[in-house]
């Protein structure tokens, strides 16, 4: 056998193929963000600040705008967890590391639960999570918030909402550019009650569209996912009669086929005619899939950064000092708000990290909350945090020690 010699050739080819595909996921991540964080950011902050409550934001801006100047401390911090914010985090860390050229901030996706675990086991300096720290014991009788408190040398951990990700309901139907769906109809599709695209209920919402009589091929995430949980929470709130059971990370669709990871879901929807599935907006954009507008009772709303940001503005903030939990509203959001957004948190120690790590992490998070960095996230398929919340997060980050 000549495997040895061949293995070299093949390994080379494979390495090439792998590195190419690895890039495919996150080619446009940031990079451009670096270097422009000074002048541009203050101007965007002020222009966006004017249309809302000007007095409040400009006041905080005057102190916030100046303090967003980053200092680039030396050292290295590792964060990890939620894969839903991975693209955003890769863009932010890359931009920060390029700008600073000294500090090393690394984010590794591993799933929210794992991220929190690694955080309180001191392998990570912060965790990214799809949900805030839980105060109740889980099935292994572990109370996350207490574990984190111990890790932070008896200082409470803070949940800082940072990344807002709209979730798209994407479809692949020939000749249909615009599709309007209601939560109720979507849930009927996931339940297998509505099986064809020309069902009367879908037709009633899309009078002009030429809907085929083909079967709907539902694609869902088969791995446990924060995206699934957030979609489930939304559908449970918006279509309680159709959604039976409790929202969880497990798939809730009763029909269709499962794929691991958002990328595979997007690929499957792209490759299969008449497919329908949910995925983070960025993936639907990259695959050039049709994204359904949602009629949440106040008229059909297309998914845009603005419409998603509107939903965030309607969200309720459950703040405990600088611990900022956000409770999303899924119904009665008012006109022009796209309801299916998810907010992911950075979980940090309020105090208790070694000084060097704390300084770097603080600096990075400050950078991430800069309006410029936030608006850059739009290119990655995320929505910016609303000004009011952004200011609060900035205040919290500054209070970290």
């Amino acid at each position, binding site marked *: 056998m000549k495997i040895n010699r061949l*293995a070299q050739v093949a390994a080379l080819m494979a390495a090439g193929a792998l590195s190419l595909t690895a890039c495919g996921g996150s080619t446009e991540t940031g990079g451009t963000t670096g270097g422009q964080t000074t002048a541009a950011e203050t101007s965007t902050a002020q222009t966006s600040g004017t249309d809302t409550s000007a007095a409040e934001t400009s006041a905080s801006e005057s102190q916030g705008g100046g303090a967003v100047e980053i200092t680039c401390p030396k050292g290295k911090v590792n964060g990890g967890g939620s894969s839903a914010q991975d693209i955003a985090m890769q863009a932010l860390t890359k931009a920060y590391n390029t700008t600073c050229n000294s500090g090393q901030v690394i984010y590794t996706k591993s799933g929210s639960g794992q991220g929190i*675990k690694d955080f309180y086991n001191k392998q990570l300096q912060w965790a990214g999570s799809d949900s805030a720290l839980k105060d109740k014991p*889980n099935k292994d009788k572990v109370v996350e918030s207490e574990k984190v408190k111990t890790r932070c040398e008896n200082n409470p951990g803070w949940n800082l909402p940072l990344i807002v990700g709209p979730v798209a309901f994407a479809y692949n139907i020939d000749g249909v550019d615009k599709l309007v769906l209601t939560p109720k109809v979507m849930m009927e599709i996931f339940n297998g009650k509505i099986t064809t695209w020309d069902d009367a209920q879908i037709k009633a919402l899309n009078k002009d569209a030429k809907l085929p009589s083909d079967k709907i091929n539902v694609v869902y995430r088969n791995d446990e996912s924060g995206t699934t949980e957030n979609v489930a929470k939304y559908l449970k709130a918006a279509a309680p009669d159709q959604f039976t059971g409790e929202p969880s990370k497990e798939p809730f669709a009763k029909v269709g*086929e499962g794929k691991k990871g958002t990328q595979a879901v997007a690929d499957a929807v792209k490759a299969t005619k008449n497919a329908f599935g949910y995925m983070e907006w960025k993936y639907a954009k990259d695959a050039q899939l049709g994204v359904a507008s949602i009629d949440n009772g106040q008229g059909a709303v297309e998914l845009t950064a603005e419409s998603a940001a509107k939903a965030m503005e309607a969200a309720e903030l459950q703040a405990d000092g600088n611990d900022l939990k956000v409770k999303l509203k899924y119904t009665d959001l008012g006109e022009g708000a796209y309801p299916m957004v998810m907010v992911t948190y950075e979980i940090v120690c309020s105090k208790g990290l070694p000084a060097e790590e704390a300084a770097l992490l603080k600096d990075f998070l400050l950078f991430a909350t800069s309006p410029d960095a936030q608006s850059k996230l739009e290119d990655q398929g995320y929505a910016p945090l609303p000004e009011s919340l952004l200011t609060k997060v900035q205040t919290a980050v500054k209070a970290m020690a």
Partner: protein
Amino acid sequence: MTNTEPKTTEAPIDVPAGADTDPTVSPVSEKAAGGSAVATATETTPPLRVTKVAMREPSKAPDKIFSGATLATGIFLVALIGAIFLFLLLTAVGPLSRNEVNFLTSTEWTVTDKRLAFGIAGMLWTTVVSSIIAMCLAVPVAIGVALLITHYSTPAIGRTVGFLVDLLAAVPSVVYGMWGVRVFAPVIQPFSDAVAGSWLGKIPLLAPGLQSSGTVFAAALVLAIMILPIVTALSRDVFEQTPRDHIEAAWALGATKWEMIKTAVLPYGRSGVIAASMLGLGRALGETIAVMLILSTVRKFDWSIFSGGETFASKIATNAGELDSPTKTGAYIAAGLVLFLLTFAVNAIARVVAAGGKAKA
């Protein structure tokens, strides 16, 4: 065997005295040249002398070290397998004792805070069925290719074909997976649809399943390609070893080429081919990433090969990222334990089969 060796060996060797002064001339050739060489030598020829060479006593240390090393590696391997088994068992036993459904016959898989109900029937079916399809397709092709290389083609062609087949073995499975899901599966989808759409679709095994291309059948085909090089390479090696005598004997009896292969090569290679197939089967059963990428999962278990499903390995790999509690991990480890035992059983059966029909070389 070492204790029978004599302490010293006295070997009478004829060494010409001139050998010391002329190192370029080896004593053996000098000796082989014999008397005539002595006569024609340019130097003055001294009389031949007989010397006694005392050989050192052979050291027993290398022997002991080697046998010790082999024993140690053997014990290490057994201990390793034992440790893996023990680890799987210990991790799995807790959740298994709290399982609400029959672990072996249920197709449900719910491991949440509220309910712990997991069964492996669906995974077992998908794993076995995809591996069997892969075997059925790959082994005949592999034997054919091996025979072509060893007995039918010219050496140049044989080498080229062998080279190409070996190349298949060097492709990482993630590449197979990506190729399978993006290129290969869509290509074979019309065939699957045609079969499932015809009268054959009435059979549960061939019933229409998925709308997309991520079927068990597609995964099995890619598995077949993945195990092809393993089975081919090993079969080729055994076919090459067929004793010349057997082949000549078959020729002498007036056998045609096919008859020669049938009576001499195949019986001789039988156990080797079975062993090769089992290695391939082992790979097919445990293949993870390629299957995970290709196969779509379905909510309800389906017998059809044109539906989706999950193998043990793909199920574990799919959810490995979120194994955030010992209970959940244990449930998946329990599935892994079944795969471990399945592979073990397959190998044991293969040994019996291979040994039972072993051709006498």
